[in-house]
């Protein structure tokens, strides 16, 4: 579904991402992991159209998307969340989601109905009419997901949505993504540090280090990989 081919990106001489390639098959959940500064979010931003790649190409459903603006990428069917959450603070939780839903819904009324159903899925419906600025961080992360889902993406890019969540909250949201993946065939690419979530969700994992792919495979393969153990998980990690 998504094919990233040899993309690179430098910031003033600092090579953030170099020659990275990976693929996300339709219906899969793929994890993108790696130490801080490995280039994960930069990869995301290139896929989402926030940054233009210096080299390489990104193909989504057979169509090159690396020259599109973020709104065009979203319209093509890729939803994203931000690692540093960006709620529309002055708007209500429901209105936040309506903005996303308006992409595919013909009217505000229809967008409102659809948004409420999404808030329900993410257990935010009780807070629908509160201002987004009043939410706690875990709720803000959920709101990021709700907004992205409201655009009815075929591929969802999740940037550390589990970070800062308690284990039970984490399991809850993992269950939501599992269900979406199973019932609606939603494809997911996630950046995550919480290994508990990655292992529970991802069928395949890509490991980045210093802007390069150092390993990829099933979770079991990756955690046994020597290079990964050395640079990221640490020798003694038990999963």
């Amino acid at each position: 579904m998504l094919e990233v081919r040899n993309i690179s990106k430098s910031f003033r001489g600092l090579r953030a991402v170099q020659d990275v390639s990976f693929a996300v098959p339709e219906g899969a959940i793929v994890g993108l992991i790696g130490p801080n500064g490995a280039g994960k979010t930069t990869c995301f931003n290139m896929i989402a159209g926030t940054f233009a790649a210096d080299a390489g190409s990104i193909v989504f459903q057979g169509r090159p998307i690396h020259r599109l603006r973020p709104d065009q990428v979203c319209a093509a069917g890729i939803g994203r969340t931000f690692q540093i959450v960006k709620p529309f603070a002055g708007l209500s939780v429901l209105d936040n989601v309506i903005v996303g839903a308006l992409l595919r819904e013909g009217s505000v009324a229809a967008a409102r109905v659809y948004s409420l159903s999404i808030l329900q899925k993410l257990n935010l419906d009780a807070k629908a009419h509160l201002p987004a600025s009043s939410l706690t961080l875990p709720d803000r992360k959920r709101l990021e997901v709700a907004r992205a889902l409201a655009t009815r993406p075929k591929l969802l890019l999740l940037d550390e949505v589990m970070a800062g969540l308690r284990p039970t909250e984490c399991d809850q949201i993992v269950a939501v993504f599992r269900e979406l993946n199973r019932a609606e065939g939603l494809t997911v690419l996630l950046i995550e540090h919480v290994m508990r979530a990655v292992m529970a969700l991802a069928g395949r994992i890509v490991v980045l280090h210093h802007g390069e792919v150092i390993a990829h495979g099933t979770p079991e393969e990756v955690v046994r990989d020597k290079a990964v153990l050395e640079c990221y998980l640490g020798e003694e990690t038990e999963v």
Partner: protein
Amino acid sequence: MIARLLEGVPRRGLAMLAALLVLLLVFPLFASGYLLAIGFLILYFAFVGQAWNIMMGFAGQLSLGHSLYVGLGAYAAAALYVHFGLSPWIGLLASIGTCALAGAVIGFLAFRFGVAGVYFAILTIAFAEFARIGFDHFAWVRGSSGLFLPVANYTENDLWNLRGSPRMFYYLMLALASGAFVLCHALLRSRMGYYWLAIRESPEAAQALGVNIFRYKMVAVVLSAAMTSLAGVVFAFYYNNLFPEQIFHISRSIELILGPIIGGIGTLVGPLVGALLLTGLAEGMGELLLALGVDVPGVKQVFYGICLLLVVMFLPHGVWPPLARKLGLER
């Protein structure tokens, strides 16, 4: 259509609006010439404040050069009237066109090249200043010596040529202010309104949700400019004289944004409340001091400044949001 507009509006708010409208409609029957002039000014500032609010309050784009659109709108209609005898109702098409174009140029330059925040504000000032200096040397509209519209004592109101009594202008401004209020109300509930607020709160997040932020910011600027131009047309035919040094002056731009700021940026009622307070305060202060026999030059301005300071310090979101809560209009 009307049912849709009224949907979700609190009953109480509607009743208050209706009462206010009736009050404003009958006001000229009792008001003296002086009060009528103040009433006109309040409605004028309510209208331009509403127009500015679309750009800043809704879409989050700070314009400090709205005098450009007042001036261009005023000059376009006035010049066509003076030179060709064209009715301002035809002239206003030229005003709207000119201002929409000016807004589009500024918007394009800014949004295409990523000029944002204070830099955008400076760009809007720059264009207003270009116009001020340019019109000083624009012979067709008499340059710095000013453009005058023919004045006579009108016994009858000629609405087609906008020649008539202050009362006619008052009602014209009331119609404009009411129209702007309803338009903004409808816009806020539309797709456009949602997108504007999203852009104001976080352009990156809005874009990630599929919003073409360039397009929607452009619409906000062009619409705001076009609306402001109408105020310019009325201004020209009400005051009958136009000087570039006055109409394009930055103090005019500041003056017209104070209303929505004091009233509440981004709120529907804020521009109206702000205009009422500011104009009422300024004029009332003058009268009060006169009655008290205080005749110190500048004392009115000092009081005015102190009042603004207090509002900004204690009501940072403007007067309307807390007032709305008091009146039980918050949902």
